[in-house]
């Protein structure tokens, strides 16, 4: 299974991941290599097998509806790249 450089560019955009032009080919090669590993899986018939999402057969625990967190804005925003008037700032979002 071979990925083209265009495939890599599309995936990188989906993941908002900047990759250098000069690296695209090597990523394509590496990913294609990984996908080759997958052929072993595809050869196996798993029609009657239930996918396993978690190792344990557990169910979701529910928590009571009470407010347990207080305002920690100062502390959290002390490590933020850019804040003003209590808001996180980003380049203008155009709808």
């Amino acid at each position, binding site marked *: 299974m071979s990925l083209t450089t265009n495939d890599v560019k599309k995936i990188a955009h989906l993941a908002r*991941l900047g990759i250098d032009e000069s690296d695209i080919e090597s990523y394509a090669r590496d990913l294609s290599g990984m996908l080759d*590993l997958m052929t072993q899986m595809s050869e196996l018939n798993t029609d009657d097998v239930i996918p396993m999402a978690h190792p344990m057969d557990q169910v979701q625990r529910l928590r009571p509806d009470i407010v347990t967190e207080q305002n920690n804005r100062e502390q959290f925003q002390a490590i933020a790249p850019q804040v003003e008037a209590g808001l996180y700032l980003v380049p203008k979002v155009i709808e």
Partner: protein
Amino acid sequence: MHNKSITDLAKSLRAGEFSSVELTQAFLDRIKRYSSLNSYITVTEDLALQEAKAADERIAKGDATLLTGIPIAQKDIFCTQGVKTTCGSKMLDNFIAPYNATVVEKFNQAGAVMLGKLNMDEFAMGSSNETSYYGAVKNPWDLNAIPGGSSGGSAAAVAAGLAVCATGTDTGGSIRQPASHCGITGLKPTYGRVSRYGMIAYASSLDQGGPMAHNAEDAAIMLQIMAGFDERDSTSVDLPVPDYRAELNNSIEGLKIGLPKEFFGEGLNSDVAAVIERAVNECRKLGAHIQEVSMPNLKLAIPAYYVIAPAECSANLSRFDGVRYGYRCANPVDLTDLYTRSRGEGFGKEVKRRILMGTYALSAGYYDAYYIKAQKVRRLISDDFKKALSEVDVIMGPVAPTAAFGIGEKIGNPIEMYLSDIYTIAINLAGLPAMSVPAGIIGGKPVGLQIIGNYFAEDRLLNIAHQYQQVTDWHQQSPKGFE
């Protein structure tokens, strides 16, 4: 002092032979002296001495636990409040965690002294500690060899006597393999045994934090602190925590040990095979019964893992976008630029490779063929283990196909690097507990024995390891120059 066990040091502290402050200072000096190993990313000198002082007061009052005053170190994947937490990445080079991971809280409450944060493969992705933004870690046994990964800093630090013990995390072998390569004892608990709250996520359904120490008893002491239900982690299991030291001295007479034939095929270095055989023989001498088991789907563990882990991590790492914390690129021109450049500049190659792979596996048209398929294979592998563990009590085998390879040897070939995870990865897919225990030295480099148990059988694993360590002394060896 620096190679002594927790129990020995605890005894000395209570007897007043030295104080925690003196002990801590001794370690801080050693860390400076051997900084070329590059096992630490951050050394928290002032904090450590403060904690040591408080520990001395607690010991004097008689209000101490075994770990009170003992200098430990945390893998830099655990959030430590007020202390830089980088996960081995440029993306978090400026991240001062605003809260403590549950595991860190527990060690703090026990009065352990934190020396600092340990180096690791970036975002826990790697098997050699070469993908770290902070540079490779050297194996104290052979400075040209890798210490293993991703908990390479943790393993190297303990082996070199730069911490009494350390925390690690294991998603595909990241505690066991470095423990094996550095000649220390490491344990990956059952999935859900140790809280993941505050442990920066790589692959959520595979990650587990665990102890890395000089011997089984120390690992048991650490696990006692780390294990337990946490209501902040939905995947945390609400089961009582046994006394992990209570069973250490049980005899292993009659223990049924299974050796999967698939573990001993081609690809396993013959010297390593011999070490494992000898170790198994020691267990036989202690009264255990050995038999062959089969894990027919074992080799599919690698492709399954390399779909599931990247898929989960591709989503887990989406939060690193330069908006609320972490690295932000300079002068972003628009939103897309902010994202692509912050993430492009903040992440290293291996992380990007896995994000790309995961994104692809989940994308429209490929979800069934890759992700669902991998989860089905996961079920098959898990069933293989269940069946085997219904015939035997534990499974044994190698941890890695060879002893530690050279720095730079495999980093250029990711696929080859992935294939070396063959013995450890399947265990994470099944969620079972497993240990690596020092079992030999080949060409001056350690080799570990892997012991795999049934769900929540950590006490049994520790018992077996402890009994093995009563009749062997591999775990007491130190690398040359670090004795």
